[in-house]
């Protein structure tokens, strides 16, 4: 399958201008560190991780709200030079975004029609006389009824606002839609409706999604492939079903085991310790129950077959070393969270 988006060794740092003391600059904070991933055509790529893991940073890089510090982003085979205005325009022409908070992402002084028209005006992609036809088409598709068009965002419910955000993102046809926690602020029944709409839209409009959320139940339900971020580093990528049923990275295993589901009670009585990322080597090694000496180095990617990749030394070994590694780390058991 041809890839729509190819991200290679993407690093985004913040805060290098901040001063730790009067004369010394604070070390830059790497919100994303050497992240590589691809998104195929018509694919939904799910990206998950805790708060602060860099999920939203990646979303914003894809619409040029942040610039990469290093690494490359290719969209439709074209390498994006973030300093080149034409490239940025090309990026925004092809990539749309829906933010988490529909209250803050819609201009409160404009009507719904104006909000959607603004996106058309900015793109200059179709002549003005076709605007109303296009708006009618897209609003019908995302489920914004005609009577909402003259209203302002504050007169809408949360679900309606999120649909307006969707209409604004898609009124200019996009190849990739970045959805940054699109349903986190919504009630469950409204979330279900929006998820259904998103699934329907994808097949009708022939596009890909980058779906970002911390809710594993949602991401399982929508995505073909899943990537797990831990403090700026991608630790595991693979087919959603594989990653969910056979997680390999100790962090993914712990994350999946903490997902609450409706039908079973599995709440763990022990309170989980705070995740402190390690500044060197594998970021998870401070809390990782399987950490050993090699984890002091930055882990390499190990291909487990079928597109399932994991960034962990536990799986990076020749056939002879396996027993040794397992003996050192107490076997490949499910990691348990240790109390402090």
């Amino acid at each position, binding site marked *: 399958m041809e890839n729509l988006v190819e991200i290679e060794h993407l690093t985004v740092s913040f805060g290098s201008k901040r001063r730790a003391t009067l004369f010394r600059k604070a070390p830059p904070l790497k919100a994303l560190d050497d992240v590589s991933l691809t998104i195929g055509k018509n694919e*939904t790529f799910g990206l998950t*991780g*805790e*708060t*602060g893991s860099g999920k939203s940073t990646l979303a914003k890089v894809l619409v040029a709200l942040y610039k990469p510090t290093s690494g490359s982003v290719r969209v439709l085979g074209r390498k994006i030079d973030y300093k080149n205005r034409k490239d940025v325009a090309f990026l925004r022409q092809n990539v749309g975004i829906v933010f988490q908070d529909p209250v803050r992402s819609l201009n409160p002084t404009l009507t719904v029609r104006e909000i959607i028209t603004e996106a058309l005006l900015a793109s200059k992609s179709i002549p003005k006389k076709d605007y109303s036809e296009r708006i009618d088409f897209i609003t019908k598709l995302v489920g914004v009824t005609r009577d909402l068009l003259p209203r302002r965002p504050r007169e809408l*419910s*949360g*679900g*309606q606002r999120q649909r307006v955000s969707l209409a604004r993102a898609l009124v200019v046809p996009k190849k990739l839609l970045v959805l940054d926690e699109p349903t*986190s*602020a919504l*009630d*469950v*029944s*409204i*979330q*279900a*409706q929006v*998820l*259904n709409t998103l*699934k*329907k839209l994808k097949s009708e409009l022939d596009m890909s999604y980058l779906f970002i959320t*911390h*809710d*594993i*139940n*949602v991401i*399982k*339900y*929508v*995505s*073909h492939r899943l990537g797990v971020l831990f403090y700026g580093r991608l630790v595991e990528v693979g087919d*959603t*079903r594989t990653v*969910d049923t056979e997680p390999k990275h100790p962090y993914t295993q712990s*994350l999946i085991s*903490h*997902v*609450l*589901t*409706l*039908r079973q*009670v*599995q*709440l*763990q*009585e*022990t*309170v*989980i*310790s*705070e*995740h*402190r990322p390690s500044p060197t080597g594998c970021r998870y090694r401070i809390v990782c129950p399987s950490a050993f000496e090699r984890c002091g180095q930055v882990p390499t990617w190990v291909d487990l077959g079928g597109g399932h990749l994991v960034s962990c030394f536990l799986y990076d070994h020749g056939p002879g070393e396996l027993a040794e590694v397992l003996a050192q780390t107490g076997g490949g058991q499910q990691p348990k969270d240790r*109390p*402090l």
Partner: protein
Amino acid sequence: MTPETRGPAIGEAQSAERTSGGNLLEVTDLTIDFVSIDGRVRILNGISLYAKKGEVVGIVGESGSGKTTLGLAILGLLDSPPAEFVSGSIVFEGKDVLRLKEGELQNIRGTGINMVFQEPLDSLNPVYTIETQIGEALKVQRKRGDGTPAKEIEGESKEEMTQLLRTLCIDKPEEVLERYPHELSGGMRQRVAISISTIEKPRLMISDEPTTGLDAYVQNRILGMFSAQRKSGETLLYITHDLTIASQICDRIYIMYAGRVMEAGGTRSVLQNPVHPYTSTLVASVPQGFEDAPPLAVQLGEPPDLRNLPTGCKFNSRCPYAKDICREEEPRLEEVLPGRYAACWRVNKTNGEFG
């Protein structure tokens, strides 16, 4: 706009159970209106519920169902105006909260009833350090507990506070104590807010969506803490829109819609075998399975507009099973199975079958 007629009264069986004693909290037929220049809106309509000592009771519903208003009313925090108590009572430990004077209420708040709010930034004071704020709560607890004067608490309190924060798995509690709320992450802030509530050892804790918008780990940390408290015999009223969370920690749940209780009963029983169509749609809305799973079965339409509710059952506009009677008369909350209550015309009152 005129207020509607009184909402459904509680069923016979439920009143029998309620009066059997031992209930820490009893809300009976609570009806609250909000009055503004635009008119009068009924926020809660004939709500009846109870919580026994040591129970975790869930209040589940979508935005606008009146969950938070209920919590605030129990704590006596609703401002009047705009709120107007139309009828009903809220009895906590034998006292009607609605008829207490502000001074008496103040004595109940904190050590009697305590509430954790959804947004910790709004409930923590931005200009005081965490230590000052937890310390304040600790002083209240001591003063009411054994009458220790504030001065004597100073020395030992820090030790107790760090210990408490440590049990909440907060790293470096000494440092956290010196910080201000804005310097903490969302999950940490919420745990600090909860610690302020728990240090007062309230007899009833109300928590209003304490984990909404937080990731799986933080949710687990907070819920783990609540379930530990349950073990120590604390009564908890847990308000949430998330059925998954309710299924994990609540003994009994009340499903609310448009200011009414639609269904009530044991958590496991309600979620595994919902009888009210509203509960069924809520359960069906929780995403399950993978990308190739069928679309989620949800009802069409938006949450109810309280100013403009349909006549009859308030859920009828979104209900796929609505028939004529549902549009004419409002069903009462009745016992449909032992320990299970539902307000629906289509549920058979003798065997709980839907039909």
